[in-house]
């Protein structure tokens, strides 16, 4: 089954260019199918009435509204995987906000075509976060994460909680998974806060991204497990 992709991009030249890239033999070889291209959220909602979309490629700045992508992201159906495509790769807060609002990934427009196609397929398979090199570079340099350490000192249960939250599980889901009450989970969370200083799941996730090799494969597994349910 081909991956069904849609685009929201307001710049005409870029939009028509992307459409032509997606009709190239490279895209067909990758089994990627463009089902629609629109210039704004309104038209995308209309598009969704006629076609099914697996992965949405979303331009971050639309019609001169900076960060418009984040707003759209928070309103979209969570079944659609969203890849942000942005000119800006240096804004850690924006990247963080996008992931928090449910984006599967954040790519800058400097990436190669091959990476774009590869990222689309990863997004379809439920992987996240998918970050381009420049974007993950920004996360690695993200200052406020530098002083916060202590993930290693978490007790096993706290660490499980940490990983599940980082993988996007809700409080209730974490509780179910660990066979404890939500109240107990809140207790673990405040322990995590005390030891690491992290106050929310996005910070957990950012820590994992920043410390690439640690925990990331486990988080990935939890993601795909969650996707199946």
């Amino acid at each position, binding site marked *: 089954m081909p991956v069904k992709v849609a685009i929201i991009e307001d710049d005409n*030249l870029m939009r028509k260019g992307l459409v032509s890239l997606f009709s190239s033999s490279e895209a067909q070889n990758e089994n990627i199918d463009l089902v629609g291209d629109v210039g704004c959220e309104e038209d995308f909602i209309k598009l969704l009435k006629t076609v099914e979309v697996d992965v949405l490629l979303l331009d971050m700045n639309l019609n001169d509204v900076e960060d418009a992508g984040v707003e759209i992201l928070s309103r979209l159906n969570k079944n659609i995987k969203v890849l942000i495509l942005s000119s800006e790769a240096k804004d850690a807060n924006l990247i963080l906000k996008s992931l928090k609002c449910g984006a599967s990934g954040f790519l800058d427009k400097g990436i190669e075509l091959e990476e774009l196609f590869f990222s689309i397929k990863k997004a379809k398979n439920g992987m996240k976060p998918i970050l381009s090199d420049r974007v993950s570079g920004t996360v690695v340099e993200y200052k406020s994460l530098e002083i916060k350490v202590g993930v290693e000192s978490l007790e096993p249960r706290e660490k499980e909680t940490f990983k599940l939250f980082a993988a996007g599980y809700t409080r209730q889901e974490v509780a179910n998974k660990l066979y404890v009450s939500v109240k107990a989970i809140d207790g673990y969370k405040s322990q995590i806060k005390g030891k690491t200083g992290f106050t929310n799941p996005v910070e957990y996730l950012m820590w994992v991204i920043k410390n690439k090799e640690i925990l990331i494969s486990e988080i990935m597994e939890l993601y795909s497990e969650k996707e199946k349910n």
Partner: protein
Amino acid sequence: MNKIKVLYAEDERIVGRAIINNLRNYNFFDVGDLITGDILNEYNELADLLVKEKLDVLLLDMELNHVPDGGIKVLEAIKKRKELDNLKVLIVSTRYKTSEKELIKKALNIGVSGFIGKNADWEKLVDSISMVYNGQKNIFSQSIIDILASNFHNTDTNNDAKEEEKVPFNYGLLTKKEKEVFKLICQGIEKKMRLMKLKIVSKTYETHWSNIKEKLDIVNEVQCLLYALENGIEMDLKSLE
């Protein structure tokens, strides 16, 4: 018919490859591979490459790998090469900001044929490439015209630029024929075409032109255009939107 050889220099690879891919659907263009990466900031090396490629039209991004005036530096490197005298350059940029007025003026002074926004219509891009190939200048997106027409001053505006904008409104002193010449210059029409439209010979044209320069206290065609825009003189410029 000779194909128009086009190259595109752009740091955002996906943008560059997307636009090139679609340009290749037009059989009157011969579009080379995207120029991208570190060479965009090796301005002399880039100029060497352009000499080798023997192209007709260069599409050029303004901000190159986070260097805000990277495009200007490329233009300066091109200017130094005799072999590139006939190369036409179109600046293609995402958004033009009012604060970039000086940058735009600078590019005009060095010698670009026009500025296109990435929100321009696709057909307009195609038309513009053909037009600049044929010697047409001053092809602008509406946003560029608005910026050039604004009297915005930022803190690093140099004194020369301020002088230039204080030029008194002497347009009324021009004769009817001089106004026609003035208008054709602003429209960026190639000189041979100007003579044809005015039905005059080169010598007469030069007389009109030196009168215009004297009356308006300007020295070149770029200042002529800026004079028109800053004083709100209706010029029917080729607009892209």
